[in-house]
C-alpha cells in the first residue's frame, strides 16, 4: 500500500518539451510510471519518448484519463499551469519548478483547492511509491518497496536518507518531497495523517529544516494523532540568522524558525530526532 500514487496513477507532464520536462518524462516512464501524455501549448501533435504531446491538459484528461500532473514549466507560467490542471479535473498536481513568485502559488493553490485538487510543491523533487510510480525528479534506483513513509522539505538530503534506509533493508511505502518554498501545497500535517491512515505504512521519517514553524505544528499533531513511530532529522542547526540557506523558505527570521526549537518540539512529541542522517535507520529499528 501507499499514499497519493500507485501503479494505476495516470500522469500528464506539463512542460514536456522543455529540457527538464523531456528528460524526466523519459526517466519516469523508464521507471514504470504510467506517463500517459504531455502538454506544451503550441506543440500538440508531437511525440516525446513515445509520449503523445497535447496543447491543453483538457485533451489529456479526455483522451487518456490523466488524473495526476507534474509541472516542469518555467516559473512565470506555473500559476497558469496549476490552475489549468485543476480546472481540467486533475486531482493531484506536483510542481517541480523552482523560483515561482510566492503570490502566484498563494493564488494557484487556493484555486486548485477550490476545485478539489491537491498540490505538492513547488520547488520539490516530487514523490515516489517504490516499485509502482515515480513522479518528479527523484532517482528511482535508490528506493525499495517497504513500509516506511518519508516526508521531506529537501531533495538530495532525502536521497541520502533513503539510501541509508534501503542499504539497511528498510523499504519505503511512499516518499514525498514537499519542497523548500515558504508557501507550498501538501505539508507535514496533511501527509502525517495520510501515512497514519495507510495500512501499508508502519513508521514515518520526517525531514525538516530551519524556517517557519511547520515542524513545531507537526510535533503537536504527532503528539495528538500519530500512533506510528516517527523519526526526524532537522537540517540547519549551524545556519546563521536572516540568511536564506538555498531554499527560499529556509531562513531564521526575527529569531524564530531555528532548528533547536523544532528539535525540542519533536522530542517532546515523542519522536526520535537523529543527530546525523546515518542514524535514522538505527533509530527506526529501536522503535519498531
Amino acid at each position, binding site marked *: 500500500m501507499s499514499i497519493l500514487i500507485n501503479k494505476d496513477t495516470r500522469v500528464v507532464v506539463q512542460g514536456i518539451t522543455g529540457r527538464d520536462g523531456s528528460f524526466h518524462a523519459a526517466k519516469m516512464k523508464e521507471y514504470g510510471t504510467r506517463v500517459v501524455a504531455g502538454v506544451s501549448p503550441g506543440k500538440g501533435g508531437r511525440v516525446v519518448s513515445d509520449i503523445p504531446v497535447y496543447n491543453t491538459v483538457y485533451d489529456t484528461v479526455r483522451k487518456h484519463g490523466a488524473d495526476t500532473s507534474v509541472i516542469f514549466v518555467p516559473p512565470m507560467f506555473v500559476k497558469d499551469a496549476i490552475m489549468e490542471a485543476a480546472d481540467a479535473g486533475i486531482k493531484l498536481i506536483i510542481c517541480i519548478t523552482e523560483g515561482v513568485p510566492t503570490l502566484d502559488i498563494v493564488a494557484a493553490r487556493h484555486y486548485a483547492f477550490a476545485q478539489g485538487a491537491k498540490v505538492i510543491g513547488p520547488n520539490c523533487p516530487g514523490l515516489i511509491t517504490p516499485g509502482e510510480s515515480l513522479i518528479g525528479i527523484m532517482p528511482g534506483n535508490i528506493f525499495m518497496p517497504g513500509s516506511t513513509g518519508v516526508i521531506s522539505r529537501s531533495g538530495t538530503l532525502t*536521497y541520502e536518507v533513503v539510501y541509508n534506509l534501503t542499504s539497511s533493508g528498510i523499504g519505503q511505502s511512499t516518499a514525498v518531497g514537499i519542497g523548500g518554498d515558504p508557501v507550498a501545497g501538501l505539508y507535514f500535517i496533511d501527509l502525517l495523517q495520510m501515512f497514519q491512515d495507510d495500512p501499508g505504512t508502519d513508521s514515518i521519517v520526517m525531514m525538516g529544516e530551519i524556517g517557519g*514553524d511547520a515542524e513545531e505544528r507537526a510535533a503537536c499533531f504527532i503528539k495528538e494523532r500519530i500512533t506510528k513511530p516517527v523519526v526526524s532529522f532537522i537540517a540547519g542547526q549551524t545556519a546563521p540568522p536572516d540568511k536564506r540557506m538555498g531554499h527560499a523558505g529556509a531562513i531564521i527570521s526575527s529569531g524564530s524558525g531555528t532548528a533547536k526549537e523544532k528539535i525540542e518540539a519533536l522530542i517532546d512529541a515523542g519522536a526520535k530526532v537523529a543527530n546525523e542522517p546515518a542514524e535514522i535507520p538505527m533509530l527506526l529499528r529501536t522503535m519498531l
Partner: protein
Amino acid sequence: MKIHEYQGKDLFSKYGIPTVKGSVCRSKEEALLAYDNLGLSKAVVKAQVLTGGRGKAGGVKLADNRDELGRVAESILGMDIKGYIVDRVLVAEAVDIAYEYYFSFVIDRNVKSVEMILSREGGVEIEDVAKTSPEKIHKIPIFPFVGVPDFLARKAASLLFDDFGLIVQGKEMIKKLYKLMIETDASLVEINPLVVSKNGNLIALDAKINFDDNALYRQEEIEALFEPTKEEQKELFAKSKGFSFVQLKGEIGCMVNGAGLAMATMDMIKLYGGNPANFLDIGGSSNPNKVVEAMKILMSDSDVKAVLINIFGGITRCDDVARGLLDALKQIKTEIPIVIRLAGTNEKEGRAILADTHFYSEETMGEAIRKVVELTNPKN
C-alpha cells in the same frame, strides 16, 4: 529583498498612503538644507539601514531646532548599527502623536495566503506583544481572488479605531496598502507605528517593506533599489553561477549538491568539532564547469584550510561525477587538502576512479567529515 524606510515611504506616497514630509540626506549640510527646504521646526532624524532595532541603537533622534538637528545628524551619520554603517539619514517632520498602532500585511506560511495583522499596541516589537498579550493582536487571512473589499477593510479598521472618521481613513489606507503589496510582489508591508496625530490624521510613521526574491524578474523598479552588502555581493556572484552561497566564519570549505544536504553537512562538521566556512549548494547536477567555479569561490576565502566535497549522485552517476571532479580539480592549483565523498548510483565505480589520486576519498558522510575536521585540526 529589503529596502530602506525612505524608499518604502516613497512607495507609500505613490499609492496615496499618508506619510510625513521628509528628505534623505548623506551629510550634515544636506540635513540642514533639508530642514530649511521642508520648513521644519521640530524634526526627527532617522538612520537608514537595512536592519531592525534602529531606535534602540540610538539611530533615531528628535531635534527641537536647526542647530540641534545639525548635531544629531552628525552623530547618527557614520554610526555602526548591527554591522551596518549609516551612510544616510531621513530628516522628517516630527509628529505630535496621540495614539500608536501596529499594522502589517505578511505572507503567512501556515494559512498559505496573505494575512493582515493589526494591533492597538503600536510602536513596540510586535513579537513581544504576541508573547505577553496575544489577545491584543488580530489576524485576518485574505482570500487571493477576493482581496480586501470595503467591508473587510472597514472591519479591520474598526478593530483599531472607535471614531468613524478614523475608521474611514483606516479603511482607505488598508485597501491601498494591499494594492501595493500585490502589485509590487511584497512579502511583508509593515507600519509600526501607524499613528493618529494630535490633529486627528492617520499617518504611516515608519515603512518596512520586504519583497519576494522569486518575483524580482517582473519588478524592475523594485529590483533597481537593491543595495547588496559586501557579503551579499559574493552571494550574488555565486547565484549568477547557479549556486546558493552563504559565508560563514569557519575553516572548512564545503561544496554540496542540494540545499538540505548542504545544511546537514554544515551541521555535522560542527557536530564533529569543526567549523564550516560556508554554505554552498551547487545544485542538483555536478558538471565539471560548476565544480571549477565553486572551487574558485571556496579558494577566495583565505580562512579555508580544507575542502569537503559531498555529492549524492542520483540521476547523475557517481562514476561520471568522479571523472568530472578530476577534470575540474586539474584546473585548480592548490595545496589545500580536499576530501571527496561520493554516494549513490555507481558509488563503487566512482570511488575506484578517485582511489589513486591525492584526494581523500571517503565512503560515508561521517567518515568524510571526521577526516576533514582532522585535517584542519591536527591536534585531535
